[in-house]
C-alpha cells in the first residue's frame, strides 16, 4: 500500500469516525421554551440524547421535566393553550417542522407514563398489540410479538398463562410493565418514561429498572425521575432541571451521571442531589 493510499484511507476512516460520532446523537433538544397560555414554564433547554443510552431528567416538582419530556414526542401540542419555541431534532431533523406527521414521530418515540394506563376494555394480549392496531401497522406473527415484548418488559412469566385476561386485573406494577410492552410492540427507537416507578412498590421498581437497563442496549431511553438512587442506578447521563419561584424552569447542569452526582459544578445541583431541597 502506498503512502498516498494509506493517507486517503486514514482520512476516510477519520471522516467515518466523525460521521459516526454525529450519528450517535439520536435526539436533541435545541433551545426549547414552552408556554401554557401566557405563562412561560420552560426556557432554553438544550440536551443531546446519545443513541442507546439512558438519560435521567431530575429536579424538584414543578420545574418542567414532565412538560419537557412531552415535547419530545409532540404530545405537548395536545394540551389546549400550549405553545413551544425551539427545535426537537430526531436523527437530525426537526420533528416540529411543517411536513412531519406527529403520528410517525410517536411511532418512533414511544412513551410510558407516571400512572399505568392500560386500556381497560382490552385483554393483556390486546393491550400489547393495541399500538399495531391503532397505527394500522401490519406485522405478522402476533404471538411472537406478544411474547417478545412481554419478555423484554419482564412480565412474560407472570402472565403467559392468562394472556386473555382483562388488563385491569393486573397489579399496578404489572400494569406498568404491560404498558412498557405495549410501547415496545411498535418497535420505537426512543422510549420516554415519565416517572414510571412513582406509583410502584420497591420490588416492581427494581424489575422495571432491570428492564430499562436491558432495553438500553437496543434503544435510547429518557426517564424523568424523582428518585436519586434510581437516576444513579439506571442512567448514563443526567440533566438537572430547576425553576426559581415564578420563573420558567431551565437546565442548571447536565453531564455524565457520575459527574452530576459525584462532582457537580453548581452549588444548587450539589444541594439537590444530596437531598438538601426539592
Amino acid at each position, binding site marked *: 500500500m502506498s503512502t498516498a493510499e494509506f493517507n486517503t484511507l486514514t482520512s476516510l476512516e477519520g471522516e467515518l469516525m466523525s460521521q459516526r460520532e454525529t450519528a450517535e446523537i439520536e435526539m436533541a433538544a435545541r433551545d426549547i421554551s414552552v408556554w401554557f397560555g401566557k405563562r412561560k414554564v420552560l426556557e432554553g433547554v438544550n440536551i443531546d440524547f446519545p443513541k442507546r443510552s439512558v438519560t435521567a431528567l431530575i429536579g424538584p416538582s414543578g420545574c418542567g421535566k414532565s412538560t419537557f419530556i412531552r415535547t419530545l414526542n409532540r*404530545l405537548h401540542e395536545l394540551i*389546549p393553550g400550549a405553545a413551544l419555541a425551539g427545535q426537537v431534532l430526531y436523527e437530525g431533523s426537526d420533528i416540529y417542522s411543517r411536513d412531519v406527521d406527529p403520528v410517525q414521530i410517536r411511532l418512533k418515540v414511544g*412513551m410510558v*407514563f407516571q400512572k399505568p394506563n392500560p386500556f*381497560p376494555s382490552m385483554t393483556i394480549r390486546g393491550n400489547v398489540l393495541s399500538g399495531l392496531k*391503532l*397505527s394500522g401497522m401490519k406485522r405478522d406473527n402476533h404471538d411472537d410479538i406478544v411474547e417478545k415484548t412481554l419478555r423484554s418488559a419482564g412480565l412474560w412469566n407472570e402472565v403467559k398463562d392468562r394472556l386473555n385476561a382483562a388488563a385491569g386485573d393486573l397489579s399496578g406494577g404489572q400494569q406498568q410493565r404491560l404498558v412498557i410492552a405495549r410501547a415496545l410492540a411498535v418497535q420505537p427507537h426512543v422510549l420516554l418514561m415519565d416517572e414510571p416507578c412513582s406509583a410502584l412498590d420497591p420490588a416492581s421498581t427494581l424489575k422495571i429498572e432491570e428492564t430499562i437497563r436491558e432495553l438500553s442496549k437496543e434503544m435510547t431511553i429518557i426517564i424523568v425521575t424523582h428518585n436519586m438512587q434510581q437516576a444513579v442506578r439506571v442512567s448514563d447521563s443526567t440533566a438537572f432541571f430547576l425553576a426559581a419561584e415564578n420563573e420558567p424552569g431551565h437546565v442548571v447542569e447536565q453531564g455524565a451521571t457520575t459527574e452530576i452526582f459525584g462532582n457537580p459544578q453548581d452549588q444548587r445541583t450539589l444541594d439537590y442531589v444530596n437531598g438538601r431541597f426539592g
Partner: protein
Amino acid sequence: MSSTLVGSSVAGDPGSLQRTKPRYGEKVIKGILVMAAGVSVLTTFGIVLSILIPSIEFFSEVPIQDFLFGTEWTPLFADGEFGVVPLVTGTLVITGIAIVIAIPFGLGAAVYLSEFASPRVRKTVKPTLEVLAGIPTVVFGFFALEFLTQVVLVKIWPDIDIFNALSAGLIMGVMIIPTIASLSEDAMSAVPSGMRDGSYALGSSKRQTAMFVVIPAALSGIVAAFVLGISRAIGETMIVTIAAGLQPNLSFNPLEGMQTMTSYIAAAGSGDLSTGSIEYKSIFAVGLLLFIITFFMNTISIGLVRKFRQVYQ
C-alpha cells in the same frame, strides 16, 4: 360536638365525655330525610297497586292471550276487541324511528364535544344542547304536526297521512338527542386523560383514540344513555298523541297514522269513559304492559352497565 369535648378537657373531668344534651335537631333532620325518601317509594308502590288492581279485573273479563296476541284494538266499539298488538307495533315503529335518529346523532355529538371540541366550544354547545331537553314535548308535537308533516314531509311523500308515525318518530328522535349526547359525553369525559395520552403516544389519531379507546372505556355510561333515551321514547306521550294520530293501526308503514300505548292512555283517559267499565279498565291493562316493558328495559340497562363497567384507579 367539639365544644363539649373542649369544655370537658378544660374542666379536667373525664366523665363529661358523655353527651350532655340530646340532639333533637339531628333527629328531626333524619326524620325529614326518611320522609323524603319514603314519599317516592310509597308513591311507586301506590302506582303499581292502582295499576295492578284494575288490570286484574280487566283480565278476568278479557283473556290475557287475547289481549297480548289479538290484532284488533277497538275498545270503544259496542262489541270491542282488546288485542294490544297494534298499540305495541305503533310504539315500536315510532320508537324505532326515534332511535335511528337519536343514537347516531347523540353519540356523534358526544364524541365531538368530548374529544374534538375546544373547551370554549364545549362550554357553549353543551348547555345549548341541554336547553333542547327542556322544551315542552307539546311544543315538539305541534312542530311535528304543523311544520315537519305539513311543510316538509308532504313535499316528499304527497300521499302521507296528516297524522303519521314518521314525523312523530323523527321529532321524538330529536327530542332525545340531548339526553343521549349529554349522558354519553359525561361518560366519555370521565375516562381518565392518561388513557388518551397512552393512545396518542402509540401513534393514533383523535378518531382512533375516540373509537378504540374512549368509547370502549365509557361503554357502560353510553349504553345507559341509550337505554334511558329508548325508555323516554317508549314512554313519550304528547308528541305521538298530537302528531301520530289516534287510530290503532297494525302496520309498519311509517307514512300512516298510528296509535301508541301512551297515546291510547292519554286519549282514553281524557275521554268520557265511565269508571269501572271494561274500556276504563283497559287503560290500566295497557299501562301495566307499558310499565313492565319500561321496567324490563331499565333492568337490562342496569345489567349492561354492570357488565361494561370499568374500574379506574
